[in-house]
């Protein structure tokens, strides 16, 4: 059976559990590091791929949203999320060109992210443990999409840590 994705019409309840010590909530805004770790079911390196991102509130109707963009060059990697009281859920996507990670790998992603928002040290919200469901492909800097693996899975991991 595939994982459940929701418990109310606005924001489905995320599957990952927050750590016992973290406080839920906080506004997701400002600078972040997005980290993606391929699912254990994928035959590709599981080295986390990270990206500098910038988040800002984006719209309130019909539900509040947060736009999270690669910083700079936001058009290369964009996450549009629906913001719940204590969670974020939304689509993370790249163009055909993919995007280069801090680890100097080229990454293609088309996936839905879903995770609990917890209060960071500075009071902002962050996601320490989220799930990413969808397509992920890796290559060397100049490699073709999927050169170092392609994988569709419902349980890639991601985090969005305040920086």
């Amino acid at each position, binding site marked *: 059976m595939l994982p459940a994705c929701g*418990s109310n019409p606005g924001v489905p309840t995320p599957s990952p559990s927050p750590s016992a010590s973290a406080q839920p909530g906080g506004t997701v805004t400002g600078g972040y590091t997005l980290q993606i770790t391929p699912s254990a079911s994928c035959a590709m390196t599981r080295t986390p791929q990270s990206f500098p991102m910038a988040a800002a509130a984006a719209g309130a109707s019909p539900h509040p949203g947060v736009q999270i963009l690669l910083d700079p060059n936001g058009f290369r990697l*964009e996450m549009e999320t629906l913001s719940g009281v204590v969670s974020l859920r939304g689509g993370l996507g790249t163009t055909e060109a993919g995007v280069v990670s801090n680890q100097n790998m080229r990454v293609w992603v*088309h996936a839905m992210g879903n995770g609990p928002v917890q209060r960071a040290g500075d009071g902002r919200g962050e996601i320490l443990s989220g799930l990413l469901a969808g397509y992920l*492909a890796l290559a060397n800097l100049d490699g073709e*999409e999927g050169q170092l693996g392609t994988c569709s899975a419902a349980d890639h991991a991601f985090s969005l840590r305040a920086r």
Partner: protein
Amino acid sequence: MSPRPLAALALLVVMRADLRPTSAAEREAVHVRASAAFAACLAPALDSFTRATGTPVALTIAEPDPAQDADLVVGDDLEMTRLLEGAGAEVATAVDLGQVPWVLVVPEGSPAGPVSALAATDTVAVLGGRAGREARAFLGGTSPGRIVLSQDREELGRARQALVPRPLAGRGERRPSELRPLVATAAIVAGSPRSADARRLLAFLAGPDGRRALGACFDPMAKSSTAGRAGYAQAVVDWWLPQCTLAHNDYNDPEEVLGPPDAVNLGGGRYQGFMSLGQGGYVTVDMGVTIRDVSGPDVRVYQTVSGAGEPVTLYASSSPDGPFTLVGLRVPCGERSQGVFSNHCDFDLAAGGVASARYLRVEDGEIYPCLSGGTVSEGADVDAVEILGQ
């Protein structure tokens, strides 16, 4: 892969010029751009067209998007979607020429087994580029070191083991694959300088002579099941589109997904009758009755436009407030629908372990960056949601 003119066709153009010095010399070649999976199939039909009309054709083997100097493009949904929806090619001219299945090529007498088992002993060549994306995902459990990506027909044909569209298969035993067949859709490039000749060529390919020439290579399009229809979405209970999508897309009305499929092309790049889900947006609908998991597919989602197969994700619940259970993740939604403008994709509630449901959430599965979109219909375009087989 860099575009590669097909040498045989270039030669053919010269030969035609020798045979018909007046007509061929005076006519500029129609430029066709086709992906590697289809180019070999097209060549005999283009030859027939030149013989019949005296109009030379130059074929470039490359992904159809960007079209560059092409007058006519031929590609699969994965390659054509953004070109058609971005008005780079004319949707109204889009014609499905046929489809080609994927085959697994192995040495004669190889033991039966999954591709992963074969890859344990030798590399597997796989079609690169956008057309090969689903095949590569299919091989997701295979070590990347065992997979060789290529769009070169000769290289793929030489491989001892390969997962390729049938026209690219080399020597060896060909085993069927469960992968979605590639659909060869042809369309006129917007603003083509040789539009008149390109339209003649397209009419030829879609006509009896063209079909005959293509028929040896392309399979006819599969006919979709129409049995057991039991109703359509009755009401919208929730929806969400990112603010970026609301600002850039023109088709934001969730009510458009209700009732039977009714999307239409109004011409001039305008449509009506669907909701574009943008980057990861969704619409949740009340089907009005409880859908039971029966044998075969239970739900059909109609997704526009012709030649575009943007994926969608489906969730189901017995309550409008959820919880919603995932039924199908990023399912390509481009199966052709008879008598309906929109394409479709089917879902089986059993895939999510769901026995029954009344509320369905349809979510964009394309998940393309909104800021890079460039069209007014970004994301999956949902026309209707139908209950099947009850």
